[in-house]
């Protein structure tokens, strides 16, 4: 009989942020913006047609003198004011990236493209820049430092009003985030040679 060696390294959790702030939540403390800033090229409201894709260019930077880790949360609020989706943006790819580090005083902003759509007019879509800190091997949310929100305006088109959209429908319509760098990553070979993780 053969017995495996049982010694093993301590288990390390993947870096995934925990404790996404519950919504509805208070707007971030304006003072928190000193820890992380985010802007986009969308106004506070836009005219919208159901299921039309909206593309936003997002700039994120670290205005502080030390390196900091962040993640970006997103949410949808339906016309009745109910939060129907709330999660972290994921930088798409064979390997999924959620947390990221921005360097002190961000010599270059991180530019990202966010694409999203909603099943009707009257929704709101928002982004939250969240500062993270490591607690052991887990990244936990420390502050919400910046918030962006756009109202998908009452415009026209069939069904309008759109209340009562099931959450599952919303999730199917969520978003794609394209970081300045990667979109698709594949691991080739090894034990998981299908690559998509």
């Amino acid at each position, binding site marked *: 009989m053969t017995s495996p060696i049982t*010694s093993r*390294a301590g288990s390390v959790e993947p870096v995934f942020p925990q404790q996404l702030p519950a919504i509805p939540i208070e707007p971030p403390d304006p003072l928190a913006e000193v820890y992380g800033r985010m802007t986009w090229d969308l106004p506070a409201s836009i005219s919208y047609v159901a299921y039309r894709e909206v593309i936003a260019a997002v700039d994120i930077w670290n205005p502080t003198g030390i390196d900091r880790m962040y993640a970006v949360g997103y949410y949808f609020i339906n016309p009745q004011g109910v939060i129907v989706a709330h999660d972290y943006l994921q930088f798409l790819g064979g390997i*999924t990236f959620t947390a990221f*580090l921005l360097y002190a005083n961000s010599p270059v902003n991180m530019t990202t493209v966010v694409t999203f759509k909603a099943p009707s007019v009257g929704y709101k879509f928002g982004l939250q820049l969240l500062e993270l800190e490591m607690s052991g091997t887990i990244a936990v949310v420390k502050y919400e430092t910046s918030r962006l929100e756009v109202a998908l305006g009452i415009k026209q088109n069939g069904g309008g009003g759109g209340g009562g959209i099931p959450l599952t429908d919303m999730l199917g319509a969520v978003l794609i985030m394209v970081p*300045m760098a990667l979109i698709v*990553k594949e691991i*080739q*070979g090894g034990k998981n040679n299908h690559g998509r993780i």
Partner: protein
Amino acid sequence: MVEFDDGTTQYARVTFTNPKGASIDYTGEFYLASATDLTLPVNNPVIKSFTIPAGGDLNVDYAVPIPLLAVQTADYVACLKVLVGGQPVVTFFGSDGVRVTFSPAIGWGDIVWNP
């Protein structure tokens, strides 16, 4: 979580996209790190520099050296540091872990006295 044998080389493909309206010079450094120190590579970072025209994208393949282990398994985080024009912009941390296992696993048979 993907799993690889230690001491092997695995290939990671990254598609970089330039969302800007001008050509940009990028450098991408791919490495593995422990979650307890995400900025300290446990292998030699694989560094690739390239230029992407405005609005373009480019597949970049990284031959990633998987570290040798002195233990049975170890879990790491895949990290990708991106520089633009030589300036560090961001380091992404993988949400999914990379598990490395010692290969071949060391085992032993039952001790037989006076066989």
